[in-house]
C-alpha cells in the first residue's frame, strides 16, 4: 500500500514537472527575449519556518527581510510558519508542509536540523534547507542518526555565512571606542558559531588595541530581553565600557546606553534602539540566497550543498558605522573590508594563540572552513570559558 502511494506521488510529481516544463516552453515561444522580462510569477511552492515572529528586530526579522526581497524578485508568495519551537516536535510542521506540496522549505533555526532530516528521508521530492546547520552534525559522529556523511539525505542543504568577517570589522570600531580597554560580550550558547564570533570580534579589537580584553557572559537563550539585559548589566557593572552581543534582541544596547557605554549590535541595523550607544552591527542579507535557491528548485534541482555566504557575495554585511566611530577607525574598517572582499585578508590568519597562550593557528596560515565550523576554543584576550 505504502509503495503504491509512493508510486502515485512520484507519478503526480512527474506529471507536474512535465506540465511545468511544457508551460515554460510555450511561454518562451510567445515572448521573444526571455531574459528581459522579469520572472513574472514563478510556479513554485516555498515555505519558511520561524522560531519566533518576523518583527523581533533580530534574527527572524532579518530572515523576513530576505523572504520579502525574494518574494518581490520572483513574484511569488512564500508561506511563513511562525512560533515553531526547534525541538523534536517540529517534525510535525515539516511533515505537514511536505504533505501540502511545498517544494522547498527553509528552516531558520539550528534545532530544526534533526527533525527536518527525518522528514527529508520520508519526502525525497521536497527540498529542505537548514539555516546555520552542518551535515556533519546529522551523522553518528556528530551526534546525529545517519551512519555516514553520505547517508544524509540528498534533498537537504544547509546555509549560513561568515559573520566572523563583519564581527572582526565591528571589533575594530569597538577597540577604538573603548577607553579602559575592557569590553563585554553578551553571548547565547557555547557553540562554534558564537565562539567564532567572539574570537573574530576579539581579534578585531586587539588589532587596534593589543592589550584590550573581552569578557563573555553566557545567557543560554537566543531571544530573552530580560536575561540579556541582566547579563549586559552585570558586564557593565564589572567595568566594561563597550558591549557586543550574539543575541536576537536589542536589550544589551539599551543597557549600555543607560550607563553611557558603547554598543555593537547584531543581525540587523538596530541603531534606533540605542542611538547614543550604537557603533555598528554585523548584519545579514539573506534575500539573494533565498531567491537563488527558490529559482533552482523551480527548475527542478535541490541545492544540497553546504552554502557558506560571505561579505564578498553580500550575505554578510556591516551596518554603516555611526558618528560615534572616529574617522580613523572608519578608514581602517573600510580598508579591511575591501581586503576581506578581495580575499587578501581573513580574520583567522595566524599567528593566533588560544586563551592559554598555546598557538592554534600558525603564522601565515588561514583557518579552513572545517576549523571555523568546529571552533571550540577562545583566542587570547577573551575572558570566560568556551564551555559555557
Amino acid at each position, binding site marked *: 500500500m*505504502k509503495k503504491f502511494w509512493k508510486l502515485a506521488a512520484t507519478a503526480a510529481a512527474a506529471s507536474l514537472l512535465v506540465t511545468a516544463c511544457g508551460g515554460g516552453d510555450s511561454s518562451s515561444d510567445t515572448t521573444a527575449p526571455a531574459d528581459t522580462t522579469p520572472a513574472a510569477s514563478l510556479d513554485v511552492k516555498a*515555505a519558511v519556518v520561524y522560531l519566533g515572529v518576523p518583527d523581533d528586530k533580530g534574527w527572524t526579522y532579518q530572515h523576513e527581510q530576505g523572504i520579502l526581497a525574494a518574494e518581490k524578485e520572483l513574484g511569488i508568495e512564500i*508561506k*511563513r*510558519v*511562525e*512560533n515553531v*519551537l*526547534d*525541538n*523534536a*516536535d517540529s*517534525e*510535525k*510542521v515539516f*511533515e*505537514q*508542509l511536505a*504533505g*501540502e506540496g511545498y517544494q522547498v522549505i527553509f528552516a531558520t533555526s*539550528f*534545532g530544526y536540523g534533526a527533525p527536518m532530516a527525518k522528514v527529508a528521508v*520520508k519526502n525525497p521530492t521536497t527540498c529542505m534547507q537548514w539555516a546555520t546547520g*552542518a551535515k556533519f*552534525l546529522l551523522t553518528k*559522529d*556528530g*551526534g546525529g542518526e545517519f551512519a555516514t556523511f553520505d547517508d544524509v539525505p540528498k534533498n537537504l542543504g544547509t546555509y549560513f555565512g561568515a559573520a566572523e568577517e563583519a564581527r572582526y570589522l565591528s571589533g575594530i570600531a569597538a577597540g577604538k571606542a573603548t577607553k579602559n580597554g575592557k569590553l563585554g560580550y553578551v553571548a547565547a*550558547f*557555547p*557553540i*562554534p558559531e558564537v565562539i567564532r564570533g567572539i574570537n573574530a570580534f576579539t581579534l578585531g579589537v586587539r588589532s587596534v588595541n593589543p592589550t584590550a580584553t573581552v569578557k563573555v557572559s553566557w545567557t*543560554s537563550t537566543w531571544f530573552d530581553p530580560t536575561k540579556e539585559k541582566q547579563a549586559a548589566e552585570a558586564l557593565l557593572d564589572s567595568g566594561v565600557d563597550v558591549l557586543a552581543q550574539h543575541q536576537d534582541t536589542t536589550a544589551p544596547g539599551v543597557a549600555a546606553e543607560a550607563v553611557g557605554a558603547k554598543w555593537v549590535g547584531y543581525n540587523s541595523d538596530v541603531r534606533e534602539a540605542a542611538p547614543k550607544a550604537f557603533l555598528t552591527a554585523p548584519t545579514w542579507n539573506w534575500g539573494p540566497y533565498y531567491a537563488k535557491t527558490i529559482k533552482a528548485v523551480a527548475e527542478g534541482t535541490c541545492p544540497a550543498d553546504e552554502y557558506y555566504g560571505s561579505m564578498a557575495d553580500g550575505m554578510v554585511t556591516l551596518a554603516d558605522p555611526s558618528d560615534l566611530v572616529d574617522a580613523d577607525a572608519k578608514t581602517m574598517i573600510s580598508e579591511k573590508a575591501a581586503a576581506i572582499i578581495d580575499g587578501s585578508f581573513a580574520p583567522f590568519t595566524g599567528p593566533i594563540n588560544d586563551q592559554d597562550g598555546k598557538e592554534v593557528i600558525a603564522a601565515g596560515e588561514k583557518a579552513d572552513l572545517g576549523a571555523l565550523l*568546529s571552533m*571550540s576554543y577562545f583566542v587570547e584576550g577573551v575572558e570566560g*570559558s568556551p*564551555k*559555557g
Partner: protein
Amino acid sequence: MNLPFRLAFEQRTETPRRLAVMVPLLSVLAAIVAGGIFLFATGYSPFETYSNMLSDGFFSSTGITDTLGLSTVLICTGIAAAFAFQMNLYNIGGEGQLYLGMIGGAWAGLFFGDRLPGFVMIPVVLLVGAACGALWIALPAFVRARLGTSEIVTTLLLTYIGASLVNHFIYRAGSYFRAPNTLFPQGRQVPDSAMLSPLGDTTMYPTFFMVTVLAVFLWWVVRRTEFGYRIQVISDSPRAARYAGISAQRTTVQVMMISGALSGLGGATLIVGTFGRLDPGIVVLGYGYAGIVIAALARNNMAAIIVSGILFAGLRTGGDKLQISTDTPIHIGVMLQGAILLFALGGEAFRRYRVRVVRAQTATAQGAAQ
C-alpha cells in the same frame, strides 16, 4: 450605571441532569460563534477556518494520530491534576513534576543503557519518571499535611526550580544528560531499548493505550475502592472523616504523591516516545499547565479526562496546523483554542448558578426605600 434590569446569580442546590449535558455543548457552540464573528471581522472565512481546524485536528489521518499522540501526555497531566483536585488539593505544579519525570526517565534510560532488554527498560524508565515526579511533590505534600502550608504556592514555585534543573542538566558543560559530541547543547539520546516505536508512520505511541487504561483504572479506584471512598469523605467533610477515624494527613500525602507520580509519568512518556532525550524545549510547551484545564473541563472525572484530553489535543493540533493549511496567522489559531477553552470553563457558572433577570422596578423600589 442605570440599566433597566440586572442579573442575579443564585447558587443551585442541585444541577438538573439536562444542564450537565447542555451546558458544555452550548458553551462550545457559543465559543465557535464568538470566534467566527472575530474571524469574519478580521477578514478570514469562519467556515474554511473551522473546517480546516477540525480536519487537521481530528479527521485527517495524520491529524487524528497527531492528536492522540499529543493527548497521551495531556491525559497524564489531566488525571494528575484531577486526582489532587478531587480532594481539594490544588497541585498546580504538575508542570514541574513533569520536568522531573523527564529528568528521571532520561536518567534511567541512560544509566541502564543497553544493560536491560526493551521489555524491562520501558517500564523502568516510566517508573523512575513517575517516582521522580512523586518525589518532587513530596515536600509540598508533607508541609501541606502537617502545617497546612498552601500547596498552590509550593507546587508552583517548585515548577520554576524544575525548569532551571532541566536547563542546568542540558547546558552545564560535561553534564551526564548532555550529548558529548554535538556542538549545540542538547540532551543525550537514550538507547533504542529505552524507546518505543511509534505506531506505523505516525507520531502516536503505544503509551496512549497505557494512559487510557490507567485513567479508567483510576476512575474505578475513586468510585469503587475504600481508598477512593476515603478521598470522597475527606473532601466532602474533613470533620466527618476525622470522626470516622480517617487520617486526612496520611491521605493528603498519598493523594498528592500519586498526583505528582502521574505528572512524572507524563514526562517519562515523552522520553520513551517523541523526544528520547532531555529537551530544554519542553519547558515552554506547558503540558503540565494544560492538565489543569483538562481536569477542569472533565470536572475531575478520571474517565472523562480521556475525552477532554483528546479534545484539547485536537484543538491544539488543529489550531497549530491552521497557519499552514490556511492563511490565518498563528495567533488566530492560538486565540481560537483559548476562546473555546474559556467558554467551556465559563459555562460552568451556568451549571452551578441559576441566572435570574431582576427587573428595574425592584431595583428602583429598593433605591427609593433607602
